[in-house]
């Protein structure tokens, strides 16, 4: 989704946890919302860079993606906290 000019990927894991992270891969801008998820690992669909959803850290190398605090309220709305850029 896009908000405040930011691209954000919101994903739900099989275990039911919801995460919000930067939507564009730092490698070549791959759409992370279209990635594969297993446990808390997210794999970019373009060249398979891997990130940890909890920390945003790439599983190799130094770069990472931004993570955003997120929770789901009892009506099923996904609430995100974003610092306005």
């Amino acid at each position, binding site marked *: *989704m896009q908000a405040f000019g930011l691209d954000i990927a919101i994903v739900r894991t099989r275990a039911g946890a919801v995460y919000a992270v930067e939507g564009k891969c730092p490698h070549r801008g791959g759409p992370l919302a279209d990635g594969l*998820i*297993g446990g808390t690992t997210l794999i970019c669909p373009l*060249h398979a860079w891997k990130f940890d959803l909890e920390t945003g850290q790439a599983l190799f190398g130094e770069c990472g993606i931004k993570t955003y605090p997120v929770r789901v309220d009892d009506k099923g709305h996904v609430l995100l906290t974003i610092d306005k850029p």
Partner: protein
Amino acid sequence: MKDKKKLVVIGNGMAGARTVEEILARGGGDQFDITMFGDEPTGNYNRILLSNVLNGSYREDEIYLNPLSWYRENDVTLLAGVRATGLLRRARLVFDEHGEAVPYDKLIIATGSRPFIPQMEGTYLADGAMKPGVFVFRSLEDCRKIAAYARGKKSAAVIGGGLLGLEAARGLQNFGLEVSVVHIGGHLMPAQLDPAAGEILKKSMESLGLQVLLKKNTKSILGADHVLGLRFADETALDCDMVVISAGIRANWEIAAGSGLTVERGIVVDDHMRSADDYNIYSVGECAQHRGQMYGLVAPLWEQAKVLADHITGRNPNAAYHGSKVATKLKVMGVEVASLGVSEPQQPEDEVIQFSDPKRGTYKKLIIRNGRLVGGILLGDISKAAYLMQSFDRNTPLPDERLGLLFDLGDPPQQVTFDEMSAATQICNCNGVSKGAIVACVQSGKRNAKAVMDATRAGMGCGSCKAMVREIVEWACGGMVEEDPSVHYYVPGVPLAKPDLIRAIQQHNLRSVSAVFDLLAGGKEDAASKPGLASLLKTLWHAEYEDEKDARFINERVHANIQKDGTFSVVPQIPGGVTSPAQLRRIADVAQRYHVPLVKLTGGQRIDLLGVRKEDLPKVWEDLGMPSGYAYGKSYRTCKSCVGSDFCRFGLGDSIALALKVEAEFQGFDSPHKMKLATAGCPRNCSEAMVKDVGAVAVEGGRWEIYVGGAAGSAVRKGDILCSASGHDEVLKYMGRFIQYYRENAKYLERTHAFVERIGIDRIRDVVVEDSEGIAERLDAEVAKSKAAYKDPWKEAYTSAVAKEYSPLLPVLS
């Protein structure tokens, strides 16, 4: 967790710890409370690297495989520094040296071996302690003692001219000592080399400053309260300040023998690695004796650990170890040596091929029986080792051209060696990884190719550089690569090879990817393993497969190929490259209506609409009204054809009609990797059928030759002829059987060309054409089931209400 069984492991070395790892990987943590006795006070470390610790190229902390934290994290109780001294089988108790008892339900004895100390006067002091200056070389503790004593000394002797003795000698040289190797036999490294090779190795060792004394039987160690020298049986003597004894090893079997288990040279085990006498007791590693054989290298022990783990966890009650073929590649003081199987001919008809160039320190010898390799020695130049070890291991027939087995003939001049290659040379162009980065990664402790690839991403793009990355890792490890067990797994996240995985899936009736993770991977999801599992499950269960969207790669989820900007490409089915004005008109209309930026003819004789936005996909498909061409899947893609006998003046067979039937037969088949097919109307092969995954080429007499395993992508390979078939129906039958055999036996992402090379065309022909395994009928039936399960995924998508899946936007509430 009351009903967990108690598993006790005696010995926390390379075999014991690896076996526990394998057991945990099979979900054994839920079945067992695990306790390990470890005589040594530390976690498990890589014994192979001890000589590198001794020579200073590694620090102690760099060789740990399982640091103490590993035991905590995996809930394994390690009794570090505690020696097990007794075993009471009837009560199922293990006693330690203080008499404390630990109960077990299952026991694994992995006590390894200890150095053998030959009878020599003056080895021990009167009080029974070893004389100061006498050492063995087996543990980190030994390393520390040797290093501490060597400082300030002038000379050292090593008793034993085997691999370990030479390694110890190299380590000692680094302390600035004059080192002599004293060997009782007539040549060095008798376990790996013949006399001629031993002689050449001796010359190489001497040129590196080592003194080599052969046929010397050490009678006594001189010196009253510390080492002063050695005296030999021929009454000659050698002065030295210290001595390292490396005269072979003896298995630690006392604890087993003391409780009445059968022990010969080692603890006798059956094919499950279980004691011959007690079904609750297993043994693994250097202390175990299997079919009369003992192993002193790590590679066989990895295989044993897997079998043991499969069996003890019940994952595969039929798991069986059949013994290992021993082939090693090592570096002795910088000299490269490879050795496989026997070192001398054993039977009169054995063929020996030999090359010797003592001046350059090169020696090569192969022993061939019935056209297959049964043994060999390569010394100095081991450039052919990888090829030879592979054919030894797989027992494949050797080519008639024997000279080519020893040398690269007529090939372009040898590429630069890794020593010469600059650190900045880019190895992986996809991910920009240099030779220097790979070496640094190895030095940081990643000691197998997969670990290095995971850490640096080298080889993780197109994969074309993988072989080179592997070679550099081997080179940087100095030949001491650790085998990565996961290379044999079908997917990395489930520790099973494909046949075992299939058996487990069928036995437990697992129909979804999540069910497989739950049962076979200890509940641990692995993202990278999902698409491979999804593909396999679909192949196995056909229509009964329980689809889970999260298991599919984006391409398979949205039935289109993701592009670099996140848009998709749409390729409708055009079998045989045959279309019609009406179809073309519809395609043109759709391209205009949805502002498709690029319309292009593909290599597969189809039409590609590129740059379609995700949210437009369902409408595009509906307006096209054509089925998916599967241009995105790890699946059957398409079948090209040439014009064939209908129009072409050379045509011998109707290649277009055949292509249409092929498409109707195999459309939508999932497979380990993509399959591209073609049919050609004559051997002029205009549709390139001979370089397709599967191709059919018409020949005289109404027959078709079926080619399999061709490739014309990042690898180029002409296919092998599987068989010749008469008429379209027979072509379809054999194609189908091959495809199904490939689907069931290939690793995920293994293209047919690699698969055919791995299995061998003769074997495939035996199974698929001659039906040597009696499975042809079943293969045919599986093909029929997959065919019946075909549904056009596009039609399914636009006729069901899943439009939101294709939307990138959620309503923002703010």
